[in-house]
């Protein structure tokens, strides 16, 4: 109080500081709402709608609970439907996890039992929202896969590591989330999509 008096801050500003302190002190929580949306549709809606006004925010910029209030704020501001909001929220919440080494996240037996997706299926479900149908990229920072000296000229091992753990190019304004934000993809799925991208886009 003495400090406030010394610098002559109005009483309303004291109230503001108090409120701000309450907000800043909030902890991470895991809400059971809203109901889960569609990850793939969310990735597409995120890439298409957020850039209508501002630069895309990295999914890792905020925690899951912070993304809830942010997504609902943007639902009002951008005129999004409830379903599209839930889809985008699901994409953001599943894309902001720190990367895990592949060996720690899957069992070989799981990979053997699971019906792996084809490379085209993985690309069209997870990658296409940002990298585009033609592989030239639809959002700022997405590389041009058709560039003969571009990212696809790297070895499979390097590409696998970048896709599995997430990657941010030196001058790109945003990072690709681990596994493109889809934690359900297996090592086999990632191998398949690398083969698909090289055959489809690399000149």
């Amino acid at each position, binding site marked *: 109080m003495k400090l406030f008096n010394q610098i*002559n801050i*109005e009483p*309303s*500003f004291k109230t*503001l500081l108090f*409120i*701000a302190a*309450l*907000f*800043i002190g*909030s*902890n991470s*929580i*895991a*809400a*059971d*709402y*809203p109901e889960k949306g569609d990850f793939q549709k969310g990735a597409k809606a995120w890439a*298409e709608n957020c*850039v*209508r*006004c*501002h*630069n895309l*925010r*990295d999914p890792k*910029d905020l925690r899951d*609970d912070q993304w*809830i*209030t*942010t997504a*609902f*704020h943007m*639902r*009002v*501001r*951008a*005129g*999004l*439907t*409830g*379903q*599209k909001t839930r889809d985008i929220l699901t994409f953001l919440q599943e894309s902001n996890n720190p990367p*895990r080494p592949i060996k*720690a*996240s*899957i*069992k070989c037996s*799981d990979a053997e039992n699971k019906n792996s997706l084809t490379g085209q299926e993985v690309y069209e479900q997870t990658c296409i929202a940002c990298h585009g149908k033609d592989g*030239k*990229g*639809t959002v*700022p920072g*997405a590389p*041009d896969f058709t560039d003969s000296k571009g990212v696809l000229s790297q070895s499979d091992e390097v590409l696998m590591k970048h896709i599995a753990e997430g990657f941010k190019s030196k*001058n*790109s*304004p*945003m990072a690709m989330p681990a596994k493109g934000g889809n*934690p359900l993809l297996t090592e086999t799925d990632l191998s398949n999509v690398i083969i698909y991208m090289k055959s489809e886009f690399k000149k």
Partner: protein
Amino acid sequence: MKTIHTKRKIFLFTLSILCTFSASADEKYEQLANEVEALKKQLEQVQSALKEYQEESITKKEVQELNQKLEESVVTQDDVDELEKQVAEAGEWNSPNTLIHMAGYANVGYASDSESYSIGSFSPIFHYQYRDKVMLESELEIKIDEDGSTDIALEYLTIDYFLNDYVTVVAGKFLSPVGQFRQNIHPSWINKLASAPPGFGHDGAAPLSDVGFQLRGGFDFDNSSANYAFYVSNGPRLIAAQEHDDEFEIDGIEAEGFSSDNDGKKTFGGRLGFLPFKGFELGLSFATGKATVTEVELEEDVHAFKSLAFGTPGDEGEEIDLHDEVARDYDVFGIDFAYQNNGFELRGEYLKSKVGAADEGITASHGATWETWYTQGSYLIPNTRWEPVIRYSDFTSATESRSQQQWALGMNYLFTNSFIGKATYEFNDGAFDTNADEDRWLLQLAYGF
């Protein structure tokens, strides 16, 4: 005697033989004892080595058991998901019904016309949400004046009730949904130049905010979508300026969100947006209602505002009763567009605000019109963080001295996607010897959080 001697000899002979044998047995015993001792040492060494070997080696069975334990200890994604689920369900505060979050933005900078560093504003946005039903959101704007005092303004405060997937009821003080710039583009970390286009700020053509309620939402179609925002509100107020003795003209529209409606007549308005294909949006806006003069600017002292109707008389001069001023027509029309594709953006906006004439009242006068438009292009250079920007604006004000044409060139550097450095140069063309005619540099750091 001879017999005795013979027996004696025999005894001595026998004794000597026995002694000889006895000495030989002692040597063998000694030898055997040594051998036994050596064997015992060797046996201990073998037993020790065997024990050590047994301690260090594991059986095949033990290998199998270890493999099984290792297999069981591998953490899978399913395990992590299940654990996260259990953690989420474990404590009451892990999943509260209410979420609290503070977002917002701030900017600092330098302007060459004032030759001063400045704090643009600090604008915290508070979100308080109850599940997926309702959200209270409020933005404050905190600024430092030239004299060092702090100004706090309530930019907006609304309670948003999510009625269903397609309709949200918004009540309170809200940013005007007329056009795009004010409601979505004005935050400094979003606006790609360090200034607002002429006509989109205070004393401009575009309404800034209002108090009332809105219905907002959107609809999705196969490959297109639409959004809408319609509102009813208290509407704006007018400022009249004294030209000659008893002649006035409308000097400005105050559309900044008043919590009382002086003429009792509501304003209706809204915006309808169409997104016919990916990356393109077209918007149509309108507002219509009534507005009344509540302040006058006197000829002899342009700084003395009179507003008896609301209890804030000027410091000097005569008092003017504005209670009986006529409610004038108030109409706004706007059209906007935006197109984005992989770092390239082109957007534009046109707005026209019109106030009707009044035949009666102290400030009776002709009507007035404000008109403004801008077009802005920007491109984030691939594989860099540099973003050049260009904008042209043309603002025609009812008060001629505020009219302005402007070319603005900018170069931005994206430290992150929400932390941006901007260098903007404005070529301004306005009334001679006014601020509107002065070119200037603007440097700005803007951070959205």
